[in-house]
C-alpha cells in the first residue's frame, strides 16, 4: 500500500504493523485484494493526517525484494530516472 506523506509529499509505503516507511523494501504485503482494500479504506480514514490518498498496488515479491508491476510504480519506488541538479536532495 502506498501514498504520499502529508508533510513533504515523499512516497510512503505501509509497513505490516500499520506504520509508514519511505522505502518500498519495508512495505507489508497483502495476498488478496479484499484485505488490501479494507486496509486502504482504514488507512484513508485513520491515517489521513500523516498520509495522502493511500491505495494498493500490485507487486512481484521474491526473496525479500519487492518489485512493482508497472513503470509508474517502479519510478515512484526508486525516484526519477534522470540526474537531478542536486542529486543528494539534502539541504
Amino acid at each position, binding site marked *: 500500500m502506498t501514498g504520499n506523506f502529508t508533510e513533504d*509529499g*515523499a512516497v510512503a509505503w505501509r509497513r505490516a504493523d500499520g506504520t509508514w516507511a519511505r522505502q518500498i523494501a519495508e512495505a507489508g504485503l497483502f495476498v488478496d485484494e479484499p484485505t488490501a482494500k479494507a486496509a486502504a479504506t482504514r488507512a484513508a480514514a485513520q491515517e489521513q493526517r500523516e498520509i495522502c490518498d493511500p491505495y494498493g498496488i500490485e507487486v512481484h515479491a521474491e526473496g525479500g525484494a519487492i518489485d512493482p508491476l*508497472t513503470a509508474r510504480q517502479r519510478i515512484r519506488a526508486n525516484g526519477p530516472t*534522470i540526474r*537531478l541538479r*542536486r542529486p543528494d536532495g539534502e539541504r
Partner: protein
Amino acid sequence: MYQYDDYDRRIIVERAQQFRGQVARRLTGEITEEEFKPLRLQNGLYMQLHAYMLRVAIPYGLLSSTQVRKLAHIARTYDRGYGHLTTRQNIQYNWPKLTDVPAILDELASVEMHAVQTSGNCVRNITADHFAGIARDELEDPRPYCEILRQWSTFHPEFAHLPRKFKIAMTGAPGNDRAAVRFHDIGVRIVENAQGERGFEVLVGGGMGRTPLIGEVIREFLPKPHLLSYIESILRVYNLHGRRDNKYKARIKILVSALGIDEFRRRVDEDWEASRTPALELPDAEVARVSAFFAPPPYQVLPADDQVGVIQLGRDRVLGNWVSNNVDAHKVPGYSAVVISVKQPGIPPGDVSDTQLDAIADIADRYSFGHVVVTHTQNLVLPDVRTSELPRLHAELRALDLGEANANKITDVITCPGLDYCDLANARSIPLSLEIAARFDRVDYLNDVGDVSIKISGCINACGHHHVGNIGILGIDKRGEEFYQLMLGGSPGNDASIGKILGRALAQDEIVDAVEKVLDRYLEIRESPDERFLDAVRRVGFDPFKVAVYGSADPLDAGGD
C-alpha cells in the same frame, strides 16, 4: 515592467496568509487531503509522484533580476537547487515540503510574485510572444493588454470555477505568431484594420490535449476599449454552457465545435450586447497608465551597421554559430535579443540551477536592463543586449553551461516532466529528450537539418505540445509499460497544423532511432537545403517516412494504434 500597487500587494499577501492557516490545519489533521486539495491547487501546489510541486506564475514570462534572484534563493533554500521552466512561461519547483510552502509564498510576495491560478479550473497565467516589445515584426507591444487581462482575471469571482482550466495567449506580431495563439482557449492578435486602426483579432476554441483543435476567429476586429467586456462574454457563455459532466469534454474547444463557431459567436454577441457596461470599457488613460510600465528602457543611439553579420562570419566559429542560432533581430539599431538555451546535454530540458539563476540575474543587470523572459519553449531571453557585447556575453554564458547554440534546432526539445515527476504521465519524456540531445549533438548535423521542432509529452494532456511539433512524441501506456507514438507535421505558428500519427507505437529503445530515420529521410528527399522539414513533410506526405521507420508504407505494417 509592471509594479504592484497597494491593491495587488494586499491581495497577494492576504492570500499567502490564508494559505499558511490552511496548511497548519492540514498538518494537524483538522482538514483532510480531500478538503485541502482544492485549497492547495488554488495556490499552485500539486502532489506529484515523489513530492509536492509548486508552480509559480510568471505573467507573460517577464522577470526582473530581483525576481530571478528570489527564484534562485527559493530553489536553494527550500528545494533541491533547481527550478523547471514550463511551457506556460512559468517556473515550477519539484521538491518543496508542505511545511515550507507558506514561507515560499511569503518570499514570492516580497518580490511581487505568487502561485495563484497556476492550477485549477480558472484563467491561468496569460502568455505572450517572448519577443514582445522588441520584435521588429511587431505591430504593438501586447504586454500592457496581457497585464490588464491578468488584473481582470485574478480572483475574478464569476470565473473561479469554470468547467475546466482556461488559457489565453496574445501576440502583437500578427505576421509571425511565436505564442501559439491558435492553440489557446482564447488567442488574441493585435491587428490593424483597413482604416489603419489598431484592435484585436480574437480566436477561440483552440487547444491541444486529448482533442487538438486550431482556434477559429470569433471576431476579426475588436476595438481596443472592448477587450475585457468581449472576453468576459466569451467566458460567460463558456461558463454557462461548457460541459461539467465529463472533464475530457469540458474545455471551451468542445463547446465551440459542438455549437459551431457561428452559433457560439451569436451567443457571445447576444451576451455582449446585454452585458456591456461602461465600467468594463478600457479607458485610454488606464491603457496609458499600464503601458507606461512597459516603456522602452533607455536605449543608446547606436549605428545600424551589421555587427551580427560580422560576428557570424568571424573567425570564432563557436561564437558565430551561437549568434546565428540564438540571436534575433531587435527593433532598436545596435541591440539584439538573445535566447539563452536551457537545453544543455545531460540536463533535463528547462531545468535551471540556483547558481545559474543568480548568475543570469547579474548578467541581466549588466547586459539587458535587468530583464529576463521565460519562453514557452523552456528557454530564457535577454531582450535588450547591445550587439557589440555579444562576444563577451557568450563567453559568460558558456562558463555557466548556458551557451548551447541550439535555439529552434532539433536538440532544443520541448519536454514535459513526464513519468519522472508527473502524476498523470503514461511514460517518461525527459530521458528521450536527453537521448535526442546526446545523439544529435553535432554542430554540422544540427545546422544541416535546420529548424525542426521536436516536442515530447508524457501523456495526452500535451503539456509538451507534441501536437504542434514538426516531430511530436506522445507517451502511452501499454499494460503498464512505456510506449511512444511518433507524429509528424505539426506547427504552432501562423501556418498552424496538427501533427498526425505516423504508424504503430514504438518502444522506448526504438523511438530515438525512428526520429533519426525520419531526419535522415528528410535530408535525402528535400528539394534544397532551404526546404524546411515541415515543408518537405507537407509536400511528400507520410509514405517516405513510414518506409524509413517501419520498412513499409503499407498501413498494415506501419500499423495503427
